């Protein structure tokens, strides 16, 4: 029967596809962790890169701190601005035109390739504003990159708040500020934090934006926001490029992946915790 054949094809196709997808997913994560876990040791995590080419021995400590620094700056800046913008759009913006314009600007930024943002950041932050190659410059560019991600999620969450609850609050003669502070933020806080954490994971893995704005091939762990720093993502790229011994490359990749998984895991936990309550 011709029909049965068509169905058989669908079954085979979907199961095969799923098999491929999950095989690839498990393989990538598993293979890296497997090969990299051998290299991971206290020394690897706490020491600086040494050897020739750089990174053939020693550790990745400065890169870990650097990655955390870049991500920290990015999250701090982006969350402050993105949450404010979401609050403005949902609670204070009355003009439909203005709303559309702002949405358009945010959408366009979301669509901008990260390397172009890096180019922009290089010219503006590093050169014109004189921040130099630094955690600040790199962090700001990353912040721009993750801003739309956070804003869209927070705005969506704010929109999911029960209208009646808000009206009840206003009906009590209470101001928007008070309503936001004591009701809205309480309701949405877990999701906001979770979105910021997810964005942080995203920022930590990004290489292109920080290539010329903050990440360097070798530096000590950054002492201030104005110092340049190493980053795990960039370090990984450099190691690959210079043909460093594979164990160290896998090791670096593993540390990076585990950090990101930890952040994403924390984000999901926070989100789930609030819902379970």
């Amino acid at each position: 029967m011709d029909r049965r054949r068509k169905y058989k094809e669908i079954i085979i196709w979907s199961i095969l596809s799923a098999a491929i997808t999950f095989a690839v997913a498990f393989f990538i994560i598993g293979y890296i962790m497997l090969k990299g876990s051998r290299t991971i040791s206290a020394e690897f995590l706490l020491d600086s890169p040494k050897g020739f080419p750089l990174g053939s021995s020693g550790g990745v400590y400065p890169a870990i701190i650097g990655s955390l620094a870049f991500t920290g700056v990015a999250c701090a800046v982006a969350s402050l601005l993105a949450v404010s913008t979401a609050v403005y759009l949902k609670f204070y913006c009355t003009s439909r035109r203005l709303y559309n314009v702002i949405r358009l600007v945010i959408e366009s930024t979301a669509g901008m390739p990260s390397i172009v943002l890096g180019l922009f950041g290089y010219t503006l932050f590093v050169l014109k504003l004189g921040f130099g190659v630094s955690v600040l410059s790199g962090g700001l560019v990353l912040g721009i990159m993750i801003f739309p991600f956070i804003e869209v999620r927070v705005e969506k969450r704010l929109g999911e708040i029960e209208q009646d609850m808000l009206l009840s609050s206003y009906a009590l003669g209470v101001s928007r500020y008070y309503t936001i502070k004591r009701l809205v933020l309480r309701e949405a806080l877990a999701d906001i934090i979770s979105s910021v954490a997810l964005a942080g994971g995203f920022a930590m893995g990004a290489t292109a934006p920080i290539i010329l704005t903050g990440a360097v091939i070798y530096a000590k762990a950054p002492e201030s926001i104005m110092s340049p720093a190493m980053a795990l993502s960039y370090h990984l790229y450099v190691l690959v490029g210079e043909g460093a011994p594979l164990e160290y490359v896998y090791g670096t990749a593993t540390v990076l992946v585990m950090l990101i998984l930890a952040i994403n895991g924390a984000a999901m936990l926070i989100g789930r915790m609030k819902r379970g309550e």
Partner: protein
Amino acid sequence: MDIIMQIEGMGVSYADKTVLSDITVDIYKNSITALIGPSGCGKTTFIKSLNLLVEDEKDGAVKGSILLEGTDARKIPREKLRSKLGMVFQNPAPFPLSIQENMTYAPRYHGVRDKESLGQIAKRKLEVAGLYDEVSHCLDMPARKLSGGQQQRLCIARALTVEPSVLLLDEPCSALDIQNTAKIEAMLKELSRDYSIVIVTHNLAQARRIADYTMFMMSGELVEFGRTSQVFSSPKDERTRQYIEGVFG
């Protein structure tokens, strides 16, 4: 009977769409005024315009004159106006806070700081709403854990914490069962001794049971207004009679 609110020529529109046109009515003090009419006739919009909540919504505009205790509602600072006109919605909307925190939310905003006074206000209003005995032992429990009927009574109690002169209720019992409805109706009758109440309801029997006055609205217009007994037994307008007799719903 004293008049507490005078509305004249009130019209409401959202963007270009007119929802209410030319409403003129008096709300009497310390009585219950029921607002009845078919779905979509503008009942909710009416009470939302009394405290000018409509103007906070997107593209909402209110025109005409609204006098509260002789003063133009628009001349009263918005927050003061809101605290004089308490409002309760159809679906209980307790805040995601504890029962106690729900009750102290508004007083805290309006300046009451010390714990004693806040506690007193909460207790008094919960008693007025007939809820205190049921919850006095668990005031720190999240309000959302209460039953639907209790939540709604909490919302009424909460609305009372700002010492309103008028209570506006939008179908407060439509999501509740018979027992809870009876409890709330009894509570409203008690409250009407000290407060002026406007209640939107689609339940004609309820209007007959508790309201002193009744407004009948249709398609954004006020068709008839008068003492409940008169509106129900000898309505002046043919449409009123038809609605009451169930010709349309």
